[in-house]
């Protein structure tokens, strides 16, 4: 499982982090909006369900799961 991010669209409301803190962290830059960062871009298969939930509930379709 490989994860990529469409960063232009992230609004930083942290739904992803609530679903799967192992993989997604939302950090606040000095100025502007908080945005998601991916902690592990190829997480273990055991996390698939949580990552899928994060992708599903992200209101902005930021999270893309490749295969």
């Amino acid at each position, binding site marked *: 499982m490989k994860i990529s991010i469409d960063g232009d669209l992230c609004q930083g409301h942290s739904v992803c982090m609530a679903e799967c803190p192992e993989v997604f962290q939302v950090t606040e830059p000095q*100025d*502007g*909006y*908080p945005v998601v960062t991916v902690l592990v871009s190829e997480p273990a298969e055991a996390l698939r369900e949580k990552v899928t939930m994060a992708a599903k509930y992200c209101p902005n379709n930021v999270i893309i799961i490749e295969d």
Partner: protein
Amino acid sequence: MQKSALKQPPKVSGALQDGGHMAEFADNFCTFLSRAHAECGELAEFDFGGQNTVLMSGPAAQEVFFRTPDEQFSQAQAYQVMVPVFGPGVIFDAPPDRCKTQLKIQVDALRYQNMKAYAGVIAQEVEDWIADWGDEGEVELLHAFHELTMHTATHCLLGKEFRQNMTDEFFSLYKDLQAGVQAISFVDPYMQQPLFAARDAARERLEEIVSELVNKRRGSGKQYGDALETFMTGTYNDGSHLSDTEITGLIIATMFAGHHTSSGTAAETLLEIAKHPQYAAELKTEIDAIYGNGEEISLASMRAIPRLELFINEVLRLHPPLVILMRRVMEDTKYKGYIIEAGKTVAVSIFESHMNPDVFPQPENFNPHREEPEQAFAYIPFGGGRHKCAGNAFALLQLKAIFSALLRRYDFELTGPAEDYVDEISNMTIRPKDPCVIKYKRRRA
């Protein structure tokens, strides 16, 4: 490419000397926008009371609209008409870095962390609201939902005490603020005008009330779990807090974004439930299965109500409460051989996008079993990109709480022929025409 080699967007016919297409737009923007798109295609330039506005239609052009950064397509410049309503230095009137922080604080208030507290508040308000409905009766949807969403909004934004003591005054001030946004506001929102004077007085009084509340809270050490708390604790980069004017402005801005949209959507949803008994039956089966064992309307159970969610999605497709979104073009922008020049406005029509038969077959039919479209940026009731609705989770949570409670208890029916229930299409919003009365009757066990 040379600028001269680029074409200007095609112009929509029928502009009047006075006001361009403003009159046609104000009369029925749905037919106007369809005509503009049919006549000109992806880019259609029209004259919106002297402001050259380029309608961008279709998923590809809409994607460009939503992805282009603020420095190039400015939201603040397009929505200057809101400045006297929100107050000086607030959002669209704030310098870009302060504006970003304010939007961030506003989004913070609507984030996941606060959502649990809101879920509890909303569930309780819904219970109170239907407590005296009895076994059967009639309800006028626009009023009923206006009231309910005013209760939930004041409660979630400003807290329990405010909700109990101040809702009525808040309500009347808010009316004056709303009446202060008119077609003429787009010409000049600062002209001498009784409506505008009332608007300004209402904003000042609201700031007084908010200041009082803020002063009481400061240093009380209590936790409130409402939006005001988030607004009060939010900080700018230099560590300073929002002023009372800015806090008041954020409250007003959140109300403007969230109130009529939520109350209109709730009314449209109940109307579609009453119009389609076969789909209503599916919803009841689903709700009964979820709440059958007395489970509470908590955040967890709110999340997975798939049929109800699809139903609401379809309501928002057919009746998007916000119809047109705008940005001011700050730098010349190329699109497929065309140039959209700085100074113009670009617009996306949510309604037009949702009526595209290539994406939504038989678009005028209400069909909650519709497949989700494959194209991104085609189904856009909440907009998209960085300015996508910050309240969409809140809005859906609220709608699901309302309809879980209602469908568990009552059956709904129209009081007259379905054709009599039509949408009011003016003032740049879509909502059911007033009055909109339906019958309810307690479900038999």
